[in-house]
């Protein structure tokens, strides 16, 4: 069980995460929703300690995560994998090596400086890639893949960490709808088949409803909704998103559906 207790993060006066208390049962798939700037990314980065809290605690099975330092902190990051909106792969390395980076925490100085991974690890990486339908790209440079493929490579890398928790910060925000669906399905399969807890920041409500057991709604750093997806009413959704509600609520909020709004703009210039 992962528990956030009154977790707070301030940036020069701005409380990006403001006294958040939440508990996550192992094996849950949780969608974190909220308008831009609500503090979703900040919260996820606090959980795997890419960023340090300014207040409150994070506890996982008796381990005080918020107090970890040095090796223990790195071991925690290995247990708690993270994937990013921009994938954050090393573009110049091949796909297989990118996936193998998930094993770094288990390596000493010499083997990692030389980039030596064992055949067992390579097999593990290939299996993970195969699982995500990417085994044939193993020797390709990571930056030659499409966005959706890169995100799946990032998931394979996360799987090599053999994590208990998978954090995903807007994993589909840079993807087209079809790739977004593939990635979300991969996340859900991992959650169901391997029992890994998935904490996923999502921009849109419908994605969260479609894939998550539980939804946490954030607004201005605070949790304003926490419950099963079905229990989220329109009124509550409106409260989470505030003025951005219409944007987030409407189905298929993609860049293409924004196009008409842009096209309307020239109408301001009167045809003479």
């Amino acid at each position: 069980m992962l528990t956030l207790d009154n977790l707070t993060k301030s940036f020069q006066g701005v409380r990006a995460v403001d006294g958040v208390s939440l508990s996550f049962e192992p094996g849950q798939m949780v969608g974190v929703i909220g308008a831009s700037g609500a503090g979703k990314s900040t919260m996820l980065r606090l959980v795997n300690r890419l960023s340090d809290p300014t207040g409150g605690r994070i506890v996982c099975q008796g381990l005080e995560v918020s107090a970890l330092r040095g090796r223990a902190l790195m071991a925690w990051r290995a247990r708690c994998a993270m994937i990013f909106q921009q994938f954050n792969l090393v573009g110049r390395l091949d796909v297989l090596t990118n996936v193998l980076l998930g094993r770094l925490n288990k390596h000493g100085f010499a083997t990692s400086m030389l980039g030596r991974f064992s055949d067992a690890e390579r097999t593990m990486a290939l299996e993970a890639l195969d699982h995500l339908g990417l085994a044939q790209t193993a020797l390709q440079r990571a930056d030659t893949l499409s966005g959706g493929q890169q995100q799946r490579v990032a998931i394979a890398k996360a799987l090599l960490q053999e994590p208990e928790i998978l954090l995903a910060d807007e994993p589909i925000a840079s993807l087209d709808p079809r790739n977004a669906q593939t990635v979300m399905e991969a996340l859900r399969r991992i959650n169901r088949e391997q029992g890994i807890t998935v904490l996923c920041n999502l921009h849109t409500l419908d994605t969260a409803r479609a894939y998550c057991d539980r939804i946490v709604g954030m607004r201005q750093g605070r949790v304003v909704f926490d419950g099963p997806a079905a229990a989220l009413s329109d009124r509550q959704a409106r409260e989470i998103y505030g003025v951005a509600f219409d944007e987030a609520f409407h189905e298929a909020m993609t860049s293409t559906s924004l196009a008409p709004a842009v096209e309307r703009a020239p109408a301001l210039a009167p045809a003479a």
Partner: protein
Amino acid sequence: MSMTLAAAGTAVPAARERHPEVFAAAARRKRRFQIALLVLAAYLAWSCWLFEITPARVFGGLDKMAVVLRQMLVWKDMASWDYAGIFEGLAQTLAMAFLGTLVAALVAVPLGFLGARNVNGVKLLRWPVRRLFDLLRGIDTLVWALVFVRAVGLGPLAGVLAIMTSDTGTLGKLYAEAVENVDRKPMEGVRATGANAFQELRFGALPQVLPVFLSQALYFFESNTRSATVLGVVGAGGIGLQLSDRIRVQYWDQACFIIVLILLTVAIIDLLSRKIRERFIGAPGT
């Protein structure tokens, strides 16, 4: 609206009366240009007087140049030339440039990381590294060579040390700047797996900067082949020594042969390094 040039000619006085400032500005520009020309001419005349440059010396020199040039182009007694000495000198110069650049490039990698703001956040540790770069590269390779010839004696070792020293400074500075320009996202992606700081640099940063490191080192090897030639003249041996010896005794044909050899060598290295650069920058590395 439009008028012909002839019509414009008759309209000049009227235009001048209506827009005096336009015509005054043109006149001012013309006067300023004339003054600049005068100053330049005076400066050139003064220089000629200062350095005792007289037409007789210039044309006398040209005459001698023509003689030298003719002697350069007519290669005599080629069978008696000391080819072994010449090619050994060339090999020595190449070895000097290669070894000096290689060691400098290797030393510059850790120093470059230490001197990069995004890697070494401690200003007190970064500052001495940066100043060391400035010191090493601020002194020309030739000066380092003179110093090392004193310290370790005549010969290629002094040349290697000279190249190594000054290039550690320049490459270190360039490498540090390359490291400061890396994309942070891959590094964060590596850190998030539970990697330590060294692993993060090795896998998140190094693949991004390695092609830059390599291509800069290759470029320096190429330019060091040229400077190693000059180092030979001040006592570091190699082809430079062979060349200066022949110029001293006015064997212009052999001097020309050596110059052609140097040009060819530099051209070949240029070609090879371009090929290697293309290959490495294009290919996946680990």
